[in-house]
């Protein structure tokens, strides 16, 4: 992917790669050559990371792991192979991004059957909640959808595991349309009495608005997941997943929280 690259850029890349290949491993100049190669190929990483948008991971995170792949590609590239560097680097970068999803327990492709199961579960949960004024049980969902309880559990688990796709696709616009306003005031009040709030604040500030809102509604205003789902116009499963992910992010950022 050399779109936007001039002949001069391409020539410079060849020059750098040749120079890198000719530089002994312990030569300090390697780092400079490597940096320039990585920097000039960052648009390739950006481009590849965008292919994985809507899978529930922040674009910046994907660029970051993709860059790791790029660095590996720079280190391993063999100029004698006669292929363009971008051709060589692309599978390495994509591989690194996919590995990231896998490490997080998220498969990149969601089996069709599970996608449908999740959609049906989300719909049934909403219907049954409206009927009875409370969230349904697994048994009720199974009966309603005429499937086994194990299948319901499998669907719930996959909703948790797969960070993405058709289930939420329809709500994407709605999500952004919600005007959430500033929650900073609520936050200060909510965190009173939490003794590690100072390390928490920057982490909360870095959360997407909707995630922060869900966190506050659930933990400080004591709303149920179903109530939050209704308030934000998304599915209960989606709320649950966002909460799980937000808590994981906060845990990772607050290692002293014991």
């Amino acid at each position, binding site marked *: 992917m050399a779109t936007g690259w001039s002949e001069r850029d391409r020539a410079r890349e060849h020059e750098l790669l040749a120079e890198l290949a000719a530089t002994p491993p312990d030569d300090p100049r390697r780092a400079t050559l490597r940096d320039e190669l990585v920097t000039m190929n960052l648009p390739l990483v950006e481009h590849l990371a965008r292919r994985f948008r809507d899978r529930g991971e922040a674009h910046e995170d994907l660029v970051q792991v993709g860059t790791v792949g790029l660095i590996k590609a720079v280190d391993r590239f063999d100029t004698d192979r006669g292929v363009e560097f971008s051709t060589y680097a692309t599978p390495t970068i994509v591989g690194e991004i996919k590995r990231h999803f896998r490490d997080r327990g998220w498969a990149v492709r969601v089996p069709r059957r599970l996608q449908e199961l999740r959609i049906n579960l989300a719909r049934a949960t909403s219907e049954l909640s409206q009927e009875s004024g*409370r969230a349904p049980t*697994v*048994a009720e969902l199974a009966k309603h959808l005429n499937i086994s309880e194990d299948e319901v559990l499998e669907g719930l688990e996959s909703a948790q595991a797969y960070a993405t796709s058709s289930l939420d696709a329809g709500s994407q616009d709605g999500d952004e349309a919600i005007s959430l306003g500033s929650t900073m005031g609520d936050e200060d009040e909510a965190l009173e009495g939490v003794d590690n709030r100072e390390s928490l604040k920057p982490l909360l500030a870095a959360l997407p608005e909707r995630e922060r809102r869900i966190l506050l509604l659930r933990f400080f205003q*004591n709303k*149920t997941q179903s109530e939050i789902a209704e308030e934000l116009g998304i599915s209960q499963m989606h709320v649950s997943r966002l909460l799980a992910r937000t808590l994981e992010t906060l*845990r990772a950022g607050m290692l002293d929280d014991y």
Partner: protein
Amino acid sequence: MPDEVAAASGPGSAPVELTFPASSEYLALARAATQATCARLNFTIDQLEDVTLAIDEAAALLIGDAVPGTEIACKWYTTATDLTITVTSVSTAGRPPRTTTFSWTVLSALVDRADALFDDGRVTVRLGVRRQQIGTVS
């Protein structure tokens, strides 16, 4: 109440137990066991997901301070009125987790009762959830 639930909730029913290495990559096992247990107890989806988040949080909390190479032990106790889950680790902390942290705020909000014990190098977080009698729909 379905027969199987009634049977499981009788006094003295043995707990479900799960032991896994103190590493976050095993959290999915604890989550799956919690979901299955909650489903069997006829919890609503809201409760089920909350308790699952709670076990995740509790286990992650303990994993953070576990002696490397040790295990996390989870037990799910069911009675006619309650589900109690204990999560135990071999801890480097020498004390139970503080209850004034954000993590603890989260735990307390997700379950009806949360407490922590420290004994002989081991920390146990205990989570209690009341089983609510819910009416049937449809």
